[in-house]
């Protein structure tokens, strides 16, 4: 489009995205890793949790930092013993607290083991977040897992062919790919754009075992 990249163009894009979402009856694709029969797809799966902070000031961000610092042992011990987490990190970006991780196996089992071993720490973190789930999480396990799942970002395949298949299964004109993508990104604000793995296909325990770090 030849409009200058100003507020009018931004507004137009918003309107058009909504129009096409309505016109094509777009449904948000589910976030998180999808089920797969292939063993490699069941290890080193990714989670990208985006949680907007209630207190959108520097003081609110400081609270989040302190909340996590206060339960360091809980988090590290829990993750060590859950046994299926490769890497996990908390990051604050623009008043959102992000939790990104690589894990093995079923998503719900991962979160449930998490709640069991570090549920209290999780309570302390999510109570700082907008629209928190019912707490304590360990008494509302099902609701908590679904709350996390709803915030787990959509995973777009990095491969363009796969990308087209996912966002535009009924597309008949390749030129429409950007529109299908925009409509889906209108429904899913946060997305993962592929994920690199230096050692795809191995579980945490396989790596720990091979490295003689004990599993």
């Amino acid at each position, binding site marked *: 489009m030849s409009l200058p990249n100003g507020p009018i163009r931004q507004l137009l894009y918003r309107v058009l995205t909504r129009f096409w979402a309505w016109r094509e009856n777009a449904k948000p694709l589910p976030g998180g890793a999808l089920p797969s029969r292939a063993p490699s797809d069941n290890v080193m799966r990714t989670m990208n949790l985006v949680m907007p902070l209630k207190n959108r000031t520097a*003081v609110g961000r*400081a609270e989040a930092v302190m909340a996590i*610092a*206060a*339960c360091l*042992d*809980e988090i*590290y*011990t*829990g993750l*060590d*013993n859950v046994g299926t987490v490769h890497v996990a990190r908390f990051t604050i970006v623009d008043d959102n607290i992000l939790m990104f991780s690589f894990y093995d196996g079923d998503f719900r089992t991962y979160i449930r083991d998490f709640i*069991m*071993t*570090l*549920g*209290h*720490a999780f309570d302390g973190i999510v109570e700082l977040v907008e629209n928190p789930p019912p707490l*304590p999480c360990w008494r509302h396990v099902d609701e908590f897992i679904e709350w996390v799942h709803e915030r787990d970002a959509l995973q777009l395949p990095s491969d363009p062919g796969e990308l087209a298949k996912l966002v535009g299964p009924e597309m008949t004109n390749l030129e429409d790919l950007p529109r299908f993508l925009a409509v889906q990104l209108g429904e899913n604000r946060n997305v993962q754009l592929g994920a690199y793995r230096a050692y795809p296909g191995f579980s945490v325990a396989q790596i*720990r075992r091979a490295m*003689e*770090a*004990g*599993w």
Partner: protein
Amino acid sequence: MSVEITAEEMLDAFKEDAPPGHVRDTRWAHTHGIGVLGHFVASTVAKKWSAAAFMQGGTVPVICRFSNGSSDPKRHDNWPDTRGLAVKFHPPGGEPHDMLAMTISVFGARSRQEFLDISKAFVPKPIPKKSWFQLNVVDPLHLRLPPPSFPPGVTESGAPGLAAFAGTHPYARAFVLEGGASIVPVSWARIEYHAVHTFMALGPDGVKRPVRFVWQPVDGVFPVPPVELPELGPDFLGEEMRRRLARESARFTLRMTLGEPGDELADPSVNWPKSRRSVNMGMLTIEKMAEPEGVDVSTMSFNPMRLPPGVEPSDDVILHARGEIYSLGCQERGGTGCPVLHGPGARK
């Protein structure tokens, strides 16, 4: 440091930190606790990193003591505190050896003098009351959090003095911050215990590696939710352990972190980064209470310097001093197995 500060002086300074009413023949720190029995089984990789007998695999019986850090003669399981886990390993055919760990990962001093200084700062004093203006105007304007609340009825504490001390003594900060974040765990089996000091682990390859140990509860760390705290009695942790062990065993994994060049080896006030390599060295399984088995841990000596062949102390001054202080304290209270400093770490 012209004249070496003695263990007696350090123990005396520490005694000043205890609330009044110390009961003769009890410990001056970690006064209240319980004994439990179980076993340790090293992981299959442990022997690749350590030549010590208890790391070679097989079942090593253990006697353990869970404790509250407080020296208060009154027991307060239901108050936030630094908890302890002392493990006495009995490797078949070898001398027993100990591993002492606590829920804070660092120590608040690096030298004998600093030990005296921080002990002095921790002497209980009437809790200063902040003015309304300070609390509601000055502190919020400084973006300070409200001061920690004390359990009902507590009028004297060493904590405010310690906090003030840590403000001006950076080496005490990590210790005080972690101590301030202390919790009441739902169980002594649901909290992590750090052996704090650096030890030198002799590997089968003949290499001595600086290492630190931590006991991680398999079920994770879990504090009592604040709403449930008022329902808990001052000795609920003992009762909880009895019930737990009647039902199932309690498990901890022993994780050993490997130090690297640049890491503090002799300074227990500084933690190592979480990015260090660490090895799962084995599983501690606690199966039963010690008392019904005729094992009395109240008189038993646990000493951080009672080490097995293959694990040596680092040059950490506090580790060596604690070895002496524990030994001295044990003698004073008529404990069993007290003077033990004949290992590789014995001071001349």
